[in-house]
């Protein structure tokens, strides 16, 4: 087996090392004292001081940051899923004119390719102007906007896989469009919702740029918070590592739960 696939196996091992090694290094760093980190010690006595610094110290905001991140990621994911699924259903299955569908998808694609940094400045001014600056809601809106194209593309692919006859059968059975959506489409597209949800959640959870621009200390998310450990006179490597280590946990758990759906989600449309 290994022989036959060695041309796949060894590159994969190499890739796994490239991915895992820095993570293990960060995880290790999270348990080192600052002095051990600076000395580059490989053998060390693990301590929890970094974590204590995150959660227990007087100026600690990390719990609050985790809360912000969770609220923002969950809300924006939910928004993306609701809007994307309804929009994909409308575009793919309610006999919209072809040109309209194409224009929407092309626009979505273009928007997806634009780097967020090109409009983040404008968002800052807009949020400030309407009083949304430094609110979680602003970040939720931002993440929803950024992730919606991806969500729409993915959900459109999943909905496209549902045979048209099923919807016609439902129509003959007495459903209106709303009932078709809730009783046939949503239950059938559940794997798609899970995979899209996990992907969007992780994107939102990892986002730095939008959160950095639209929040201050009270509403900042974990990635922003971690960045603040690098200050002018001191870089708190230990705290940074501990924060990063903790912040990977939700994503890791979600990935493990939704693994089989995610692979399906990323591959959907590849062979069809």
């Amino acid at each position: 087996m290994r022989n036959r696939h060695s041309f796949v196996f060894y590159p994969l091992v190499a890739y796994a090392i490239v991915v895992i090694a820095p993570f293990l290094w960060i995880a290790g760093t999270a348990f080192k004292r600052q002095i051990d980190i600076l000395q580059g010690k490989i053998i060390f006595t693990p301590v929890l001081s970094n974590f204590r610094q995150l959660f227990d110290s007087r100026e600690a905001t990390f719990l609050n940051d985790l809360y912000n991140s969770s609220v923002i990621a969950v809300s924006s994911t939910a928004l993306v899923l609701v809007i994307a699924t309804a929009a994909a259903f409308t575009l793919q299955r309610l006999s919209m004119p072809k040109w309209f569908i194409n224009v929407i998808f092309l626009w979505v694609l273009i928007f997806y390719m634009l780097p967020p940094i090109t409009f983040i400045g404008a968002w800052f001014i807009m949020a400030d102007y309407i009083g949304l600056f430094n609110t979680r809601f602003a970040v939720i809106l931002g993440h929803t906007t950024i992730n919606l194209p991806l969500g729409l593309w993915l959900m459109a692919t999943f909905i496209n896989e549902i045979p048209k006859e099923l919807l016609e059968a439902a129509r003959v059975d007495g459903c209106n469009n709303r009932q078709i959506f809730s009783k046939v489409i949503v239950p059938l597209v559940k794997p798609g919702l899970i995979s899209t949800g996990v992907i969007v959640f992780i994107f939102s959870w990892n986002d730095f740029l939008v959160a950095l621009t639209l929040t201050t200390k009270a509403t900042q998310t974990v990635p922003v918070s971690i960045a603040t450990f690098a200050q002018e006179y001191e870089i708190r490597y230990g705290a940074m590592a501990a924060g990063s280590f903790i912040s990977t946990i939700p994503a890791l758990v979600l990935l493990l739960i939704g693994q089989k759906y995610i692979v399906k989600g990323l591959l959907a449309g590849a062979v069809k």
Partner: protein
Amino acid sequence: MSEIILKKIRKSFGKVEVLKEIDLEIRDTEMIVLVGPSGCGKSTLLRIIAGLEEATAGEVIINNTNVADKNPKDRNIAMVFQTYALYPHMTVYQNISFALKMSKVPVSTVDEKVRAAAEMLGLSNLMDRYPRQLSGGQRQRVAMGRALVRDPVAFLFDEPLSNLDAKLRVQMRSEIRLLHQKLKATSIFVTHDQVEAMTMADRIVVMNNGIIEQIGKPLEIYNKPKNSFVAGFIGSPTMNLLPGHMIDRRFKLENGNHIDLDKVNPDWNNKQGIFGIRPEDLVIVSDQEASETETLEVKVKVVEHTGLETLIYGDFGRTEMCLLTKSNEKIKSGDIIRVKVNPDKVHFFED
């Protein structure tokens, strides 16, 4: 009481006209079969009746009401799809009861009706299964059950048997027929299989290129096809259709051969057209008989035995002909046989 009348139905997809002025009356309790080659518009017509497709022009009148602008859900029509279209996330029970639930029938009535329908179709012990756990035939039955529970004004069947294997298809054919006799519900059945049409229909509607070629009882259509298309489409093996010219009692084929008949309908005299003989109306005669009557000489090419009958393909001059006789082992490829045309059974089409 449910009667469906189609008035001047037209349908175009872009520039392509798939239905050209269809007029059809479907009587109460009747089983109508729409039959025709693929692309003839039969499925489109069915979908227009169901409300899944909107007619470009014309009226669909169900029980004296024009429903052309109504949604499928307001037409109270049940449909069995070619692919069955079972809801994969619902059990057999949920699939069958779905339509009743949508129309807010009380739960106890739903249960009663679903059990009755399942009983009728032999699905009672499969109620908790999901479609993916069923065989093709069972899925087909669930699709039927979904239609049966509803007490609709009409049942529409869109080639429901074409995904079954041959044996099951024959079985389901007679089961649907039996169900229809029991329920006496107006039914419209679409198929491209003329055997299905012949065996199931009260009346057959033969369609081609978006028009109705002929409407009639199965045997009426078989014995008196209106034109060469119907003649060639209905009947297996296919009717021999030979283009040519009728002069007195002699039919001159386009390729130079001719067929002499003992007697001929005087209306056909001196007309250009297509001469049609069903394979079973060509009778092999002995040499002795041949001297007393007009016969054709056919050189046998292929002999097919089906057990009960023998099918013979041969050349009559340069024209290929097919004839059907009772099982006959004597005839071999390469033989020359003499064939008599039954003059009462010949057809002549002027199209």
